[in-house]
């Protein structure tokens, strides 16, 4: 199968390293990316004509960003690179793509999904008010457009991205009102042995924190979000939280960046029929892949945060490793030394990611405590109370059923931002584990598809 049609979806760290490895073996993949430029989310490149330097844009990650971009620039002319192209659906052996309103299909023998991750969100009462962003959204505004999401921004949630984005805002000169972490200090201490698997990265994290303290940004740990304050007309005006010791604190702001680490983008894998598995450590559904990135469907592979949330460094290793798995499956020679190097690096990162999950746990209990009036699904404006009633009055104890009854997860975001919290609300109301209520089935289109979309003749 020397002429195998290999398609990689996603030009972030995993996709680029995968393409690079395949190219080195003499294979020329098609690399499809939704974004206009390469780099994915974490190493998102600024639009043409913007001139900020690497340190300004990527801070502690500047060297890695530069290396990845340079690698991409070297291989760009040698592969079939298709930016600004959304894969909105697939059938066995064929991808459905749309680019600038034109629809086309791309046939594949092997498909490598490097689709990355999006923010994992937990609702707080009032989070539907204009001015509430996800951490990732706040980061995109800064990296891509060099703008802050507000004049005075609160960062709330948990996980490494909370500190990374907050410090990037500080560095860019934005006004950061506070960094509010739901995880208490004790969790971090408990996670230290695992986090020490990557002392360099742990040190980077501590540096970020030190930067925040130096800039005199209030950082509160072990908080509990109570409400995003404001009104529909003027949007966010503040946040109200309870502190670790129980007292209530109100902080004025006009924007909130919210997030609890990441969730994988698995829609395409789901539409391809790939099996999913429940990851206990992070308490969410991940794609079931073997060590090298083979999914349960023959010819479909995955790497990076889209299959396992392990961060950008791991994504680069996983991208190389999945390329080598494909080469093996195509009976092509593989550099064993290089392969083992990726495996060892990933083993260390697996350990570290367990530490992160322990240090910054997903705040499942918040879902149970959400007031009935709090909105869970922002697209369809469905409240926690309405969702709970599908359980108590209509007997829905499974997420797809609760979705059918309540519309939670039926909106524009296709459940990206509400289905995990929704599952927690359902599980709590039904008195079962979140694993038992299942996961929302993927449905096309992966992102909204304009009715103006027209077919181009092949």
């Amino acid at each position, binding site marked *: 199968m020397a002429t195998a049609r290999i398609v990689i979806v996603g030009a972030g760290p995993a996709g680029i390293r995968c393409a690079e490895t395949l190219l080195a073996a003499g294979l020329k993949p098609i690399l499809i990316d939704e974004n206009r430029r390469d780099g994915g989310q974490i190493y998102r490149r600024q639009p043409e004509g913007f001139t900020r330097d690497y340190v300004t844009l990527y801070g502690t990650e500047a060297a890695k960003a530069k290396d990845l971009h340079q690698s991409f620039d070297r291989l760009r002319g040698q592969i079939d690179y298709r930016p600004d192209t959304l894969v909105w*659906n697939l*059938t066995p052996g064929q991808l*459905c793509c749309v680019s600038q309103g034109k*629809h086309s*299909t791309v046939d594949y023998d092997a498909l490598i999904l490097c689709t990355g991750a999006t923010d994992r969100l937990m609702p707080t009462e009032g989070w539907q008010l204009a001015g509430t962003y996800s951490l990732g959204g706040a980061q995109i505004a800064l990296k891509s457009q060099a703008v802050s999401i507000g004049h005075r921004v609160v960062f709330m949630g948990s996980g490494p991205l909370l500190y990374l984005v907050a410090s990037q805002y500080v560095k860019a000169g934005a006004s950061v009102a506070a960094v509010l972490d739901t995880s208490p200090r004790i969790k971090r201490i408990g996670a230290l042995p695992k986090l020490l698997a990557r002392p360099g990265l742990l040190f980077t994290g501590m540096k970020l924190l030190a930067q925040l303290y130096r800039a005199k940004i209030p950082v509160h740990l072990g908080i509990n979000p109570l409400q995003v304050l404001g009104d529909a007309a003027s949007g966010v005006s503040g946040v109200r939280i309870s502190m670790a010791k129980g007292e209530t604190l109100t902080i004025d702001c006009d924007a909130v960046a919210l997030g609890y680490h990441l969730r994988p983008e698995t829609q395409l894998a789901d*539409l391809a029929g790939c099996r999913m598995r429940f990851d206990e450590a992070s308490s969410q559904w991940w794609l079931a892949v073997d060590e090298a990135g083979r999914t349960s469907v023959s010819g479909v592979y995955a790497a990076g945060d889209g299959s396992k949330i392990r961060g950008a460094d791991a994504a680069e290793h996983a991208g190389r490793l999945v390329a080598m798995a494909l080469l093996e499956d195509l009976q092509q020679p593989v550099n064993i030394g290089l392969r083992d190097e990726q495996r060892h690096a990933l083993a260390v990162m697996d350990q570290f990611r367990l530490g992160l999950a322990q240090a910054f746990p997903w705040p499942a209990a918040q879902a149970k405590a959400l007031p009935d009036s709090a909105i869970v699904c922002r697209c*369809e404006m469905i409240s926690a109370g309405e969702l709970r009633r599908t359980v108590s009055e*209509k*007997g829905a104890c*499974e997420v797809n*059923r609760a979705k*059918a*009854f309540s519309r939670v997860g*039926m*909106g*524009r975001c*296709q459940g990206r931002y509400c289905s995990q919290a929704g599952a927690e609300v359902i599980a709590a109301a039904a008195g079962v584990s979140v694993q038992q209520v299942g996961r929302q089935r993927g*449905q*096309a*289109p992966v992102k*909204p*598809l*304009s*009715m*103006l*979309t*027209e*077919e181009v003749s092949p």
Partner: protein
Amino acid sequence: MMLHKADVVIVGGGLMGSAAAFFLRQRGQSVILLERDQIGQYASGVNFGNVRRQGRFLGQLELANRSWALWRRLPELIDDDLEFIASGHMRVCYREDEIPELEAYAAAPEAAQLDLKIYRGAELHERFPFLGPEVKGGSYAPHDGHANPRLAAPAFARAARRLGARIEEQTEVADVQKVGGEFTVTTTDGRQFSAERLLITAGAWGQKLSEQFGEPVPLDTHGPQMAVTEPVPYALPTVIGVYTKIPEEVIYFRQIPRGNIIIGGGYRSKPDMLNRRAYVEPRSILNQMDQMRRLLPGVGNLNIIRVWSGIEGYLPDSLPVMGPSGNVDGLYYAFGFCGHGFQLGPGVGDVMAELISTGSTSTSIEPFSIRRFASSAEQRTTEQRSRAS
């Protein structure tokens, strides 16, 4: 082994089975309903949601009228409104020579209760200014409308349960036997249910059971192709559907008060019967976009946010199997509604309950009898025998 007994056992918890359970309980019959997966999960929960009478086989309108009267009694009937709106239904065509066909339908005595009105030319575009210029005529049914299919079967099942019906979900039938005057249903988890009367409302799987009783039917399965747009201000209360003989031109849409426009029609997909899942074919969506731009030019800049399919049972004459078995006393069928069962659901439940508890029904259902396939089944058997010999 524990044996659970009732007057009637129903196999299949779609809209037909759930509604039948409800009306049987109203008539005082004890009922056990067995559903392999979840109530209303397949054809019943994923269809377009048309509560439409016009355009049906004329011989079905008596049943549709009976059902319509029940839809009108929501929410009192089952204490749930199912988001039913009698918004009006407009059946439009792209060709002048199709208008007389719409007129002939409107003039049929069977369609009298529908109060159909034919629109054409300037009057049509004045009344429905959003329709594209290619639309030449249409038949307006003021009393037809639409409802939310996701809610219907579960609501009927809950209402039946409140009246005392026993509803068993995640309960798959392994075997059905009739010994003496009694049917015994054994499920895959080893439980047994028995009754003197058995109703098969198993949709796309109905023929598996009818076949066991010597009544095979040529049932085929298709996946409907549905899409929904993001919400926009509510402006299109009328359900619109295209009347045409060209399959790609078949398109229908409805807007719900929260703003989304639901679209169906065009191609169908082949369901994966092994995993019991049906997908939307990408070409269906592209075709729907083409057809929608033609029918409703203003739809252009909206986004499709979700598509879905399901598993529907079809018979070659596009009519359901409904009524008593031709072979076995006490056995009844209501399945294979060929993609147009949603509006009929309450009426089918009511008629089947009447038939099962009284032995007859005042509504004509003769055209749907399973016996219409009997001769061809006998033929097939004869052919098989002659091939074997």
